[in-house]
């Protein structure tokens, strides 16, 4: 059982806050929700929406359909028409001239003078509270559940404001009750206390738990929220955040801090990530740990800047000049954003190389109820470092930072401040110490040493996840956020008797070919589903495991996340045109 609710209007009309308030209330009352917002690259005007899906069990996707549409403008009705179904309700502001839903017998309409009522109360700004009240009435949600949320949000602005919002809420609630019959009772709720978290917040938390104490970043949607999170929490743990002048500086400052022994990171999105490419090579060459969080999106320069996309895969895999070892981790759920970001810091220090965490706008900015956040297992250890005692035992100048004698290629590093451990991190090829060299043989051996670090790298069983029929004839493959729609699509396919499975790739470099191969071998057909236009993951699969003839792609690059229906249709061959590659 599920319900979906959406508010839409012009940016700047309080769409976000309307959605946030309702999401908070629903989550607090024990409902599993998933909240997704769509917005445009401007501050005021344009179309924006906030959608909440409510379920009686954990929910990872905002849903194909819509039960209640709260429309602040005409465009909202038009743009969301296709999501409405028989019996859907449109609540719209009829104090605004020009909002007129098309006549459609399938739909229920609730015209409410939202703006007018808010003005009567004394301030147009509380229009969204009137709307929340009406929505609550339509969902049979008790008003008292809003009390603590209103208190929290407006207490700072004084009791008058709190009271005004209370009144607005009640007025909307009563108006709906008195005038409309349609009710959309909510799915049964559990007794569990649920956390309402976003991917970006979980990335921040993962970084903090992973020992990150320095973040340098440049503001960029949709990654800025990570910086906000770090600004709020890091100082409490002796950490520092720097708003750098650009992404080049941000990334290189993080390398500097890592060199000085503090776990450090930068967070960005595609365009900023492009600027960091040079620095990735630097971290690899100097064997300095570095964590980069890339919250992917369309990006100015190449696409739709505020829409989700998974188009940076190749950049994460191959970006930067030269050749260096690197690790690329891709969380596929909001909770995994924490898990993989935590491990990014461990791995970066252990292997002394750049680790990239690739999330995306959909994962980063969506919010969900989570009952599975257990933080007790995340404990940090220091890795691959030389101790002062070890240095003291050596003769002066005997310590070799880039010691070739290490079998696994990981030579323990010293940190400025450690006696007898001095060295110069060199971006040019160097010998075992810190002397620049051009000797061909030594170059080859130093190069091999660096690449040897990851030669046998295996993140373990968590590198991939597999769901569904083991001996299925169809294998769906994805990385990152489309996993949420695919899981539901798979569910539907399995119920319809289709033999199918879903493979989710979470480590894409070094590629866990040994783990992935058997699944591709068994499947008759492989459909790779990704949010980009050229099938970057499909290309990677062909390169790493072969099976070119089996692999097909389902691609979406219009800025809109996949829908479950789209995936099911594609699999059932009803929309052949959606296949590419």
């Amino acid at each position: 059982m599920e319900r979906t609710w959406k508010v839409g209007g012009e940016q700047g009309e309080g769409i976000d806050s309307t959605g946030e308030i309702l999401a908070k209330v629903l989550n607090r009352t024990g409902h599993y929700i998933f909240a997704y917002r769509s917005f445009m690259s401007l501050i005021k005007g344009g179309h924006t929406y906030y959608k909440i899906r409510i379920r009686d069990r954990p929910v990872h996707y905002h849903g194909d359909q819509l039960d209640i549409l709260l429309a602040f403008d005409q465009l909202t009705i038009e743009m969301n028409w296709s999501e409405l179904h028989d019996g859907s309700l449109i609540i719209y502001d009829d104090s605004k001239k020009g909002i007129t839903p098309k006549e459609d017998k399938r739909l229920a309409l609730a015209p409410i003078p939202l703006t007018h009522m808010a003005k009567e109360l004394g301030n147009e700004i509380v229009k969204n509270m009137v709307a929340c009240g009406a929505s609550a009435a339509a969902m049979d949600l008790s008003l008292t559940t809003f009390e603590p949320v209103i208190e929290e949000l407006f207490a700072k602005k004084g009791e008058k404001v709190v009271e005004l919002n209370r009144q607005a809420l009640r007025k909307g609630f009563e108006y709906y009750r008195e005038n409309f019959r349609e009710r959309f009772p909510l799915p049964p709720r559990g007794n569990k206390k649920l956390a309402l978290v976003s991917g970006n917040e979980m990335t921040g938390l993962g970084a903090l738990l992973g020992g990150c104490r320095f973040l340098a970043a440049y503001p960029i949607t949709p990654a800025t929220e990570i910086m906000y999170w770090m600004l709020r929490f890091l100082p409490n743990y002796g950490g520092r955040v720097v708003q750098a002048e650009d992404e080049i500086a941000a990334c290189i400052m993080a390398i500097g801090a890592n060199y000085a022994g503090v776990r450090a990171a930068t967070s960005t999105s595609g365009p900023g990530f492009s600027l960091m490419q040079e620095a990735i090579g630097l971290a690899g060459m100097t064997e300095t740990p570095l964590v980069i969080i890339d919250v992917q999106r369309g990006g100015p320069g190449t696409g739709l800047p505020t829409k989700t996309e998974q188009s940076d895969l190749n950049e994460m895999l191959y970006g930067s000049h030269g050749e260096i070892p690197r690790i690329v981790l891709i969380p596929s759920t909001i909770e995994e954003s924490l898990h993989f970001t935590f491990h990014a810091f461990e791995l970066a220090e252990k292997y002394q190389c750049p680790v990239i965490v690739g999330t995306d706008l959909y994962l980063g900015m969506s919010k969900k109820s989570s009952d599975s956040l257990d933080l007790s297992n995340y404990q940090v250890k220091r890795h691959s470092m030389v101790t002062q005692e070890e240095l003291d035992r050596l003769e002066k100048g005997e310590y070799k930072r880039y010691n070739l004698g290490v079998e696994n290629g990981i030579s323990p590093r010293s940190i400025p401040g450690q006696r007898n451990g001095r060295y110069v991190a060199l971006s040019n090829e160097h010998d075992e110490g810190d002397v620049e060299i051009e000797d061909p043989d030594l170059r080859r051996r130093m190069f091999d040493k660096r690449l040897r670090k990851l030669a046998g790298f295996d993140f373990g069983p968590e590198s991939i996840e597999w769901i569904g029929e083991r001996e299925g004839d169809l294998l769906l493959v994805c990385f990152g956020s489309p996993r949420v729609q695919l899981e539901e699509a798979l569910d539907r396919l399995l119920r319809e008797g289709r033999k199918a499975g879903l493979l989710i790739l979470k480590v894409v470099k070094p590629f866990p070919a040994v783990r992935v191969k058997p699944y591709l071998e068994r499947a008759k057909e492989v459909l790779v589903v990704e949010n980009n236009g050229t099938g970057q993951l499909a290309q990677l699969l062909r390169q790493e495991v072969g099976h070119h003839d089996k692999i097909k792609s389902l691609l979406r690059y219009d800025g809109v996340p996949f829908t479950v229906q789209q995936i099911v249709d594609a699999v059932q061959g009803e929309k052949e045109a959606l296949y590419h590659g």
Partner: protein
Amino acid sequence: MADRNASMQMFRVDARPTWCPGCGDYTVLASLQKAVANLGLQPEEVVLSTGIGCSGKLSQHFGSYGFHGLHGRSLPIAQGVQLANPRLTVIAAGGDGDGYGIGLGHFLHALRRNVNITYIVMDNNIYGLTTGQTSPTSAKGFKSKTSPHGAAENPIRPLYLALSQGASFVAQAFSGDVKEMTEIFEAAIRHKGFSLVNSFSPCVTFNKVNTYDWFKDHLVKLSERPDYRPESHLEALSYIDQFGGLVTGIIFQQEGRRAYHEENLGGEEIMPFDSPVKMSNEEREKILSYYY
């Protein structure tokens, strides 16, 4: 003096510098070694970050911790190091191309943050390691491989830039004067906050205009003007103006201003560079509680 020599020895490395004979960078290296020795610093307490080019090699020839990074990016490395561990003495060095060309943005921002680092720019008015092209500080009309008919641009004027953007320490040194350069480096390192030392460091191979002799003929020593007061911003600007930027000495110094690591959130508190802070389960639960 014996102690000082021993101490200077600590900042020497075995590998011989690869600069051309007569290069001004030798003096910068020697002066810097002397300055840190005079200040009683230990090699493990100092980090020298450099970019690319002839100037970039300074870190390789200096016996402290060092980072030879990317062209124009010595300052972001230095800032990361300084903010991670403010107990370290952090020096960034680069050339005029490195610092005022590709790295100009970083220069202005490190300066306005007032990060506690000493920034030495080895200014030879030309690109050396790429074999003689016009640099950001080459004079208008300067002829080189990339400006065969004379440079069309006005040069970057680092002293004006630094002063106009509120630098708390601005100085200029000359490789033909080791004694003064050493004194300036010492003062710059002692200064808490961002210190710029623009150091004329002639390129004997490619720059046949701005030679040692040329500098000797043109430079004016502020120390020979007993009335000069480095605490006056206006006086600093007027001297630079009067002598076309060709002065040496401490041009401006503002005392008492808080450095960036004291202003930025973490405050004076030094980050745990030995080990990340362990977090108790209570603390973990407290963070989570924000999301319920």
